[in-house]
């Protein structure tokens, strides 16, 4: 027992407090989103908020159990967990239940379970375990490719389940690579590529190419002395033009029409408030109508009356925005940012490389979900169905994010050890 007390003493209070705050905010807003006069009891298991209560309680139990584990366990079982996760992803492809077009659910009795959610933390563990191997040299191409493979295999399986949203989540691990020594310019090139991607969809491709050539010529004239740079810049131009045309081709020929219109709506090209743009428009109306201080608890009309679809899962932030206004939104965003920065700070103080990489993995995944989910509700990201960590309704996601975070909290209690 004395040892246990020691564990709790070393547990980072900031993370636990923020975690509990976010989970409670989530529950309050789920309650508000489905609240109706007929179902007032907060333990009504027929309602989302009643069930979410169970998920919260079980999550807390899971968190407690994790804290009681030995840290070495997570490192040791990284690969088995990862392989098991891959296996369930394959099995779900065969026997899974189709929900909203994705074959990504196991239905066990009344409980639905989404392997893709669990794969996130499995990948996180496996990546940390692999990259922290003592004899590893990150600068070797072979190492990088293998690390990439750890991510890409589950991502492809999830993609096969038609769950594009979750598949994209895996790109979050780029941040981990960056921290562990991936050349910084790759991140910049990635950002430039994303910018080019967006511009291609917004501007006519020939005008864009013209602009790119113009900028290149200007740069060449400006730095004509340095031949190496001129070659580099010209090379970039050729690459950029290739990207522009391939993005254009991919968008028009490879994406499904609904995906095309989601992207178009997000970029503001298409204002279709009934079809593809319905969710986004209603979501913006809900959030926008909140004003500075919001309409007050249970007074949100947009979310409560189901104008915003999936308002207790993917669009839970609408309820926050509508009922608690700008102030409430600020608090939630603030909590996330503090949580993320705190994780990074803790990760940096780990003696064990495994713990540090795992911490970065947790931060990356949480950050990606946070950025895409809130971004989509306010029209800054395409509508991809991924949950808002700790707030969204749903057992699988709450459990996974809890496990993800608390393993890190556990690892942090042993920060001075080499695991």
């Amino acid at each position, binding site marked *: 027992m004395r040892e246990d007390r020691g564990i709790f003493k070393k547990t980072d209070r900031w993370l636990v407090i923020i975690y509990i705050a976010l989970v409670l905010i989530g529950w309050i807003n789920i309650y508000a989103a489905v609240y109706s006069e007929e179902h007032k009891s907060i333990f009504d298991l027929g309602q989302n908020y009643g069930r979410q209560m169970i998920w919260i309680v079980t999550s807390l139990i899971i968190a407690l159990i994790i804290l009681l584990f030995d840290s070495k366990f997570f490192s040791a079982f990284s690969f088995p967990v990862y392989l098991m996760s891959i296996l369930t992803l394959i099995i779900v492809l065969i026997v899974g239940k189709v929900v909203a077009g994705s074959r990504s659910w196991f239905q066990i009795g009344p409980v639905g379970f989404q392997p893709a959610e669990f794969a996130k933390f499995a990948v996180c563990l496996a990546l940390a375990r692999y990259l922290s191997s003592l004899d590893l040299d990150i600068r070797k191409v072979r190492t990088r490719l293998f690390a990439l493979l750890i991510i890409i295999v589950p991502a492809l399986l999830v993609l096969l389940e038609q769950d594009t949203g979750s598949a994209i989540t895996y790109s979050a691990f780029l*941040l981990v690579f*960056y*921290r*562990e*020594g991936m050349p*910084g310019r790759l*991140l910049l090139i990635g950002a430039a590529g994303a910018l080019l991607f967006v511009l291609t969809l917004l501007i006519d491709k020939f005008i864009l190419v013209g602009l790119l050539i113009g900028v290149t010529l200007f740069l060449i004239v400006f730095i004509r002395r340095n031949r190496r740079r001129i070659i580099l810049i010209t090379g970039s131009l050729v690459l950029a033009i290739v990207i522009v045309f391939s993005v254009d081709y991919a968008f028009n020929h490879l994406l499904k029409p609904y995906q095309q219109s989601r992207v178009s709506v997000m970029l503001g090209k298409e204002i279709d408030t*009934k079809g593809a743009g319905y969710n986004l428009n*209603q979501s*913006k*109306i*809900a*959030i*926008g*109508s*909140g*004003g*500075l201080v919001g309409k007050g608890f249970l007074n949100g*009309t*947009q979310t*409560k*009356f*189901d*104008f915003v679809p999936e308002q207790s899962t993917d669009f839970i932030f609408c309820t926050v*925005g509508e009922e608690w*206004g*700008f102030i409430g*939104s*600020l608090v939630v*965003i*603030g909590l*996330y*940012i503090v949580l*993320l*920065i705190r994780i*990074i*700070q803790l*990760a*940096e103080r*780990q*003696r064990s490389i495994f713990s540090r990489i795992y911490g*970065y993995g947790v*931060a990356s995944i949480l*950050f990606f979900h*946070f*950025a895409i989910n*809130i*971004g989509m509700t*306010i*029209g*800054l990201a395409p509508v991809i169905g991924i949950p808002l960590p700790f707030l969204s309704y749903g057992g699988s996601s709450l459990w996974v994010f809890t496990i993800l975070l608390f393993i890190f909290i556990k690892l942090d209690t042993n920060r001075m050890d080499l695991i």
Partner: protein
Amino acid sequence: MKNIYSERKYVVIGIFLAVGFIFIAKLFYLQIINKSYLLSAQNNVIRIITQYPARGLIFDRNGKLLVYNEAAYDLMVVPDQVKKFDTLELCNLIGIDREIFTHRLKSIREYSTRKASVFEKQISKETYGYMQEKLFKFPGFYVQSRILRSYTYPIAAHTFGYIGEVDNATVSSDPYYKPGDYIGISGIEKTYEKELRGVNGVKRIMVDVFNREKGSFQNGKYDTSAVKGKDLWITIDADLQLYAEQLMAHKKGSIVAIEPSSGEILCLVSCPSYDPNLLVGRVRSKNYEILEKDTLQPLFNRALQATYPPGSSFKLMNALIALQEGTTTPEVRFPCNGTASVPIKCSHYHPAPQNMLGAIELSCNPFFWRTFNTIMNKTRDIHDSYNLWRNHVMSFGFGNSFSSDLFTEVKGFIPATDYYDKYFGEKGWRSMTIRSLSIGQGEILVTPLQLANYVATISNRGYYYVPHLMKSIESEEDYSRTRVKKTTTIDPKYFTIIVEGMYNVFEGSMGTARHYKVDSLDICGKTGTAENPHGKAHSIFIAFAPKDNPRIAMAVIVENAGFGATWAAPITTLLIEKYLTGKTKRKDVEERIINCNLIGD
């Protein structure tokens, strides 16, 4: 433990902060700067339902209910809130096919996607019953209750007018109306629209995206209740109107009866007419089209809008003017050579020469030509004489509209001198040129209403109250807008001999209407036959009764019926008898009139 890349944590934290900042900035814009989302939110969930009040009832002068309301239900749609549903079920429910459904929804969408529009008008009560239960299956649709007019008797269609959907011009100029609202389009419904319509109420109901009502918005804080329209008592006597319309069956023409002591219109008949119930609800536009195409023009209100030469009934006017101007006296006699008379022949065979009294009784044409000639020769210039004459004529209400509460009167025509100047040249016309005016023919045109007012004025011996239809409006004490007295330019004393002459039209041994004399009633009248270039002459009769303290004055015109004495006179006397005694004794005359078909179909 630090390693060479540990500085990169700042880049990672920087990315987190940047994204957080972008979100906050965007939220600041959405929630605080841009107010349009707040508005959208209200439109989204609050359904504004207009509470249509009951339209005011219309009673006749004796308190008989003439026009009342029946409930109807409109199926409304808010295109924005329509979601995928079983269209076939809805189509079957309201009995339309799918193509019409799609087409209708499309055109409504083009008008407005956010505002509620009528999808199907006046669904039956049975359908409404089903609808109430199934409505939740059709998101975006709801039922709005409306008021439809209903009529106790199929009479006085032109007087009542009808209500219909408000037009776009009115919607844009009068904020009270919204598209789809009903408004009085003609008749009393139009004139007294403001009183009859009441005040629309507004109810704000919150609905969710599945069209389920979630109770009133803010406990009804912003709701207003509908205020019932005011009831209207009109001057029409329903029994008289009904009887008049029966007598006019299968005839073209009109009857206007006025109470001389008040100017109240007792009956206003234009035939052929139609059943006002035809222009109600769903069938209105279809029936309107049928009525509009009818060659007998049942929609045309002849009593107010048709103009005729007044014929011999106008001889009284010339006698009055000549007496007033002193160009003749009651004793003056003029010769008559019957059909051999010049310049105007006389079709009545009677002893000659006659004085004024006899000339009225016998309707002697040459007498009134000579009398008219004395007026036109009073001054040296025909223009001055004619203007004297015209002023007197117009003081009886001819050549102008009364501008009371009657819907679309026409002015008739009493030409000014420049009309003749233009036609004949300034020096090109004289008394002889316009001789037809002496016997009420020629250029002058009058409406049946003006003719009735003219006889009412004679019965009042020189003044009239502007004819009108409103007797009283619920809780309104001020009748000044309908009780307007007008005095003519003729001295009351000159009317005595005219009234006496009119009395002799019935009572005299050779009176032109002596066959229709009613025992115990002192009726005074004058026949008229308006020549008509298009066919048989119009039969005209004007009369009032009793001779002293008259209670009713009326003008009857039966188109293409021939002599005034043949048709218009018996109709007049039957109506006067009915009005004054409550019944009619002369069943043979009544039967002959009712069964007579003068339009030949």
